Each structure stands twice: as structure tokens, then as C-alpha cells.
């Protein structure tokens, strides 16, 4: 908020609005209209704007919105939301200074019979009254290389990209996205407690943040760039290391224990041990990228130390810190 004297009354109202109705703010419809171009010119000198792309089969947009509404309210920043993955483009991103992606790589246009209503509500397909009519589950990738390139270009010119939770899975489906995101998700254990350790305490993002326990999915990721950029490790203190993946740790494409469109696993399942890489931050062109792996539930998102780290991340991405 360096340029606070340029903040318009409208933006102040947005920042001040209550958490529920709030933040959200600028309707998506303004994007691309001539009106928003004018606002865009102004916005460069006022409060930075954030767009969130969220929601997939396993991650209800409702809890993501609730989690991020609080984050942005406490930061005093506006945030817009979309679940329309097919809209992601250079044009969509143009009015924004920060892009948050919080969803995986898969869509299921042929339907699915589990995880459909609330997360965890599993119903065997056998019990359906129309088993013959219901198609087998078959995921597809949604992201195009053009969309990955749009994110890459957006960051290169000086903007920020915050990749959250399961979003490193998208790097399985787009090379240009993986290039900017910086790594890939290998798989994850079920929701259980683990410890998150800060491995770089000198970074602005981890400043003032302590190691913490969280009950969440422990995502195992591979980071492609300089290991010095890694900020967090997660460790299962109970020594649970039964989690295995078939996704190649150095690999591109392939499949895992999860359903993915790519067919059979590239390699035999291998244990990933008790410790995983859970966060990184790097420069990309003139912009910045952060990935943090926690966030399967609202309570994980609001774990106090993790929440502090998210605030630091947004500030660093927007070069406010």
C-alpha cells in the first residue's frame, strides 16, 4: 500500500467492507470492458488487484473463498474470484497484479459419483439406480499451453503468482505452467497431522513465522529450480512413510495413484519418505512466484502461523515487502 494517497473512495470501501459480502468486489464483468481499462490505468497507482482461480472436484470453492476472504480483508486488499477455468487468458489477467491459482489439473465432463457433493462423501457407483446409464469416470486436463504461457508472461512482466495447495498438480499438464510455477506435485497422503518446518528463516515470507503443526494433506512435490528457493519442509512426526507414488520424481507426464488422464504409471510406486518439500519462492522475469502446499480445509488455511505466512507471501509477491 505504498501509494495509499492514490486509493479511490471505492477501493477504500472495498477494503473496509465486511468479510462476507466484501473483498470480492469488482465483478468479473468489468474485465475487458472499456470501463475497466480506465480503472486499470488508475489501479497501477492505487491498490493492487488480485484474481483467484479456484475450485475443482475435491476442493469446494466455498471454503476457498471463505479462507481467502479473511486473508485479503486482513491485508486490506481487494480480491476477485472465478471458477471458470476456461476463461484463464492474458486478457483475463491484464487488470491484475497478483494471480492466485487454487485448483488441480483435472476436469470431469463425463461426471463422477464420488466427492460430488461434500468432500469425503463417497458413494459406490454400484449402488446407483442407473448404473448402466452412468458413464465411467474419466478425467481430462483443462489447461492449454496458451493458458500456461499467459501465466508465464503475466509474471515475467513484473506481476505475482501465488500457487496454493493442490495447484502444483497443474504442472503435470502444462510445460509452460510448470516453467513458471517451478515444480510439480507428486502426490499426497490422506489428511493427518504433520509438522511444517521453516528451512529458510531469512526470507521475507518466513519472517516472524514459527514451525507449526497442521492436520492436512501432506503434498509431496519436486522443485525444479535452485534448492535455495525452498522455504518449507513438512515432516510426519509419527514416522509414517507409507505413502507411495508412481509419478516419476524427475518426470514429466505420467500418472499416479490418483486418476489422471495419462494412462499407466511411468514407474513402480516408490516411497516418498516422511519429509516433503512444501513451499518455495522465486523470481521469474521481473515478477515473483510463491507456492505453499497446505490448504485442504478452511482450518488448515487459518492455522495461525500458516496464515501469517500467507500474508507475508502476498505482500512479497506484490513487492509491498
Amino acid at each position: 500500500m505504498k501509494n495509499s494517497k492514490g486509493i479511490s473512495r471505492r477501493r477504500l470501501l472495498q477494503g473496509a467492507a465486511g468479510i462476507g459480502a466484501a473483498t470480492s468486489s469488482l465483478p468479473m464483468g468489468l474485465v475487458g470492458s472499456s470501463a475497466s481499462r480506465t480503472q486499470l490505468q488508475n489501479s497501477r497507482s492505487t491498490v493492487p488487484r488480485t484474481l483467484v482461480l479456484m475450485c475443482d472436484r475435491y476442493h469446494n470453492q466455498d471454503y476457498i473463498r471463505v479462507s481467502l476472504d479473511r486473508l485479503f480483508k486482513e491485508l486490506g486488499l481487494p480480491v476477485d474470484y472465478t471458477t471458470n477455468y476456461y476463461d484463464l487468458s492474458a486478457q483475463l489477467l491484464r487488470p491484475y497484479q497478483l494471480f492466485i491459482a487454487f485448483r488441480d489439473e483435472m476436469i470431469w465432463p463425463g461426471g463422477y459419483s464420488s466427492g460430488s457433493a461434500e468432500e469425503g462423501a463417497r458413494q459406490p457407483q454400484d449402488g446407483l439406480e442407473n448404473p448402466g446409464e452412468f458413464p465411467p469416470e474419466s478425467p481430462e486436463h483443462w489447461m492449454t499451453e496458451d493458458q500456461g504461457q499467459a501465466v508465464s508472461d503475466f509474471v515475467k512482466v513484473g506481476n505475482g503468482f501465488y500457487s496454493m495447495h493442490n495447484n502444483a498438480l497443474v504442472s503435470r499438464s502444462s510445460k509452460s505452467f510448470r516453467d513458471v510455477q517451478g515444480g510439480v506435485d507428486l502426490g499426497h497422503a490422506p489428511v493427518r497431522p504433520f509438522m511444517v518446518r521453516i528451512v529458510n528463516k531469512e526470507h521475507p515470507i518466513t519472517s516472524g513465522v514459527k514451525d507449526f503443526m497442521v492436520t492436512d494433506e501432506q503434498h509431496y512435490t519436486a522443485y525444479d529450480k535452485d534448492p535455495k528457493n525452498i522455504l518449507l519442509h513438512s515432516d510426519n512426526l509419527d514416522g509414517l512413510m507409507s505413502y507411495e507414488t508412481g509419478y516419476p520424481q524427475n518426470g514429466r507426464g505420467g500418472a499416479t495413484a490418483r486418476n489422471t488422464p495419462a494412462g499407466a504409471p511411468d514407474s513402480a510406486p516408490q516411497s516418498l519418505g516422511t519429509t516433503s518439500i512444501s513451499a518455495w519462492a522465486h523470481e521469474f522475469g521481473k515478477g515473483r512466484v510463491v507456492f505453499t502446499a497446505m490448504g485442504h480445509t478452511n482450518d488448515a488455511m487459518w492455522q495461525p502461523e500458516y496464515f501469517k505466512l500467507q500474508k507475508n507471501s502476498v505482500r512479497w509477491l506484490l513487492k509491498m515487502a
Partner: protein
Amino acid sequence: MGNANKISRRHLLRNAAALAAAGAVESGTLPASQVSASSSGKSNVRPRALALIGDRAHNSDAIRVSLDRLFKELDLPIDYTTNYYDLSKSLLEPYQLFVCFRDNYIFPNGNLPANRSQTAAGAFGGGAFANADYWITEEQGQAVQEFVAAGNGLYSLHNNAFLSRSSKNYREVQGGVALSHPALRPFKVRIVNKEHPVTKGVEDFMVTDEQHYNVYDKGPNNILLHSENLDGLTFEAVLRDPKEGGPGASGPPQNLGTTSVSGWAHEYGRGRVVFTAIGHTIHAMWQPEHLKMQKNAIRWLLKMA
């Protein structure tokens, strides 16, 4: 589709797109500004639908998948939004059909997964609904009323009758209110008015779903569907809504019996309204007879039938 010769290239492209990418080409309000700027009147292009979807217990992902298939098979475009606070007269302006598939609650103070226990919710200082707020304003309810009264359609799906709890204006156009529902279990949906265009060619059907119990406020002749638990399981509910207080807020459980009102259709001003209560999962949405009825409902709402 009476004006097929006036279909624009843009709309053709939209309809030609693949299932997933299709139907759903743009976010909620983006088309609004474009259409209002580029078309001289709403009636001379293909009808357009906007769906407001998603709540704590209903992932918008599943709703989108369900409706994408419906609108693809109807060969009609559909836009989606999850941004409930954007619902307004101007948001609805470019559309002829408003599909509303979400409940009345938001949880700005925290939102545990819907399948977590109440005990777990204690970590946030209360039961699951202790921190609930309503999202709809009377202005938003009024906007839907005026939209329909002017000659457009409202398709209210599944748990959307809960929204009538929180807005008098919305209830006035929607026509009823949800009381409560038991867990997912099989029940029979019976067509009680076989003469209506919405039920034409649709057979009674079994479905495994939440059986929602509703009250309908308008003429009983408008009721199209009853649902009945064939196992004789009744549903006893405390008709409690902590936000409402008042009579019954903490009263004794009421037995709602085995049979519920689960679909209706009425005229409202120059427009039309349909409510169908089934739809907690994709497989319930795609139950073949139910899917057929949804198609009929949309055609009737758009006066294509």
C-alpha cells in the same frame, strides 16, 4: 429457437465447443457488458442462461458438470457464477433464464467440510451453523422478481428453496420454501400432474438423493411432483433455523411423513418459474427421467414449448 436464422456466429461457436469448455464460455458478468453494448434487443438472439451455483455443501464443480451436459444436450449456451454478491438487476439483464442452485447460507467466520462432525466444529466455537450468515438481500430478491415478472424464467434447483427462508421477495417469486431433508436414501418421485409440458413424457422414477420437504405457497394445482419413501421411512425434523428464531426455533421435532412436495411450476407476471428438488449429486441430476424433465422445464421456462 424460433429465431434460429438470427443466431450469431459467436453463439454458434459457443455451441460448437466441447462439453467441458462449452456452454460455459464466460464468467458471469463478462457477457453482460458485451451483449448490452452489441445487441439491440434480447429477444432476437438465442436465449441465454445464467446459473448461480455452489455453497458449502454443494461443490460448484459437480453442479457445473451436471448442467453442462443438460445445456449441451439442449444446444443452449450457459454462463456460470459463484459470486452470490454479484446477483443484481444488471447482472440478469442479458439473460432470459436464471438458474439458481445454492442455499441461503454463507460462513464468513469459518467453514468446516460439511462432513466434519459438530465436535470438530467446536474448534471454531460452535456448531456448523452457529456462524452462518444469509447472503441474499431484499434488493436481490426483488431483482429476481422483476426479472421473471418481465417475461423471463427462473429455474430453482434442489436446495435453492432454502433461499426463500431468507428473503420474502425471493420466496414470493420462487413460490415456496424448504423445510429440511433426511440423509441420502432411495425414494420414488411421482408425477402428480401428467398434463404439464414440464412432465410430458416423463415416467415416475426412483432416485437415491436427499428427499427435500417443501411447502408450496401458491395454487396446489401447480404442484408437479411428490416424492415418497417406499420403505415407509418417515422424516422427523426440528424445523430449526438459528437465524430465524421465533416459533419453532427450538420446538419439538415434527414428523413430516413419507411424502414430500418436490416440484412445481407457475406463471409469475409475464414469466415462468420451475422448482425441482432432486439434485444432491451428479448421478441424481442425470437420472434419465429427471434429466428429461429438466430439459422440459428449461424449454417451458424459455417458452420454447
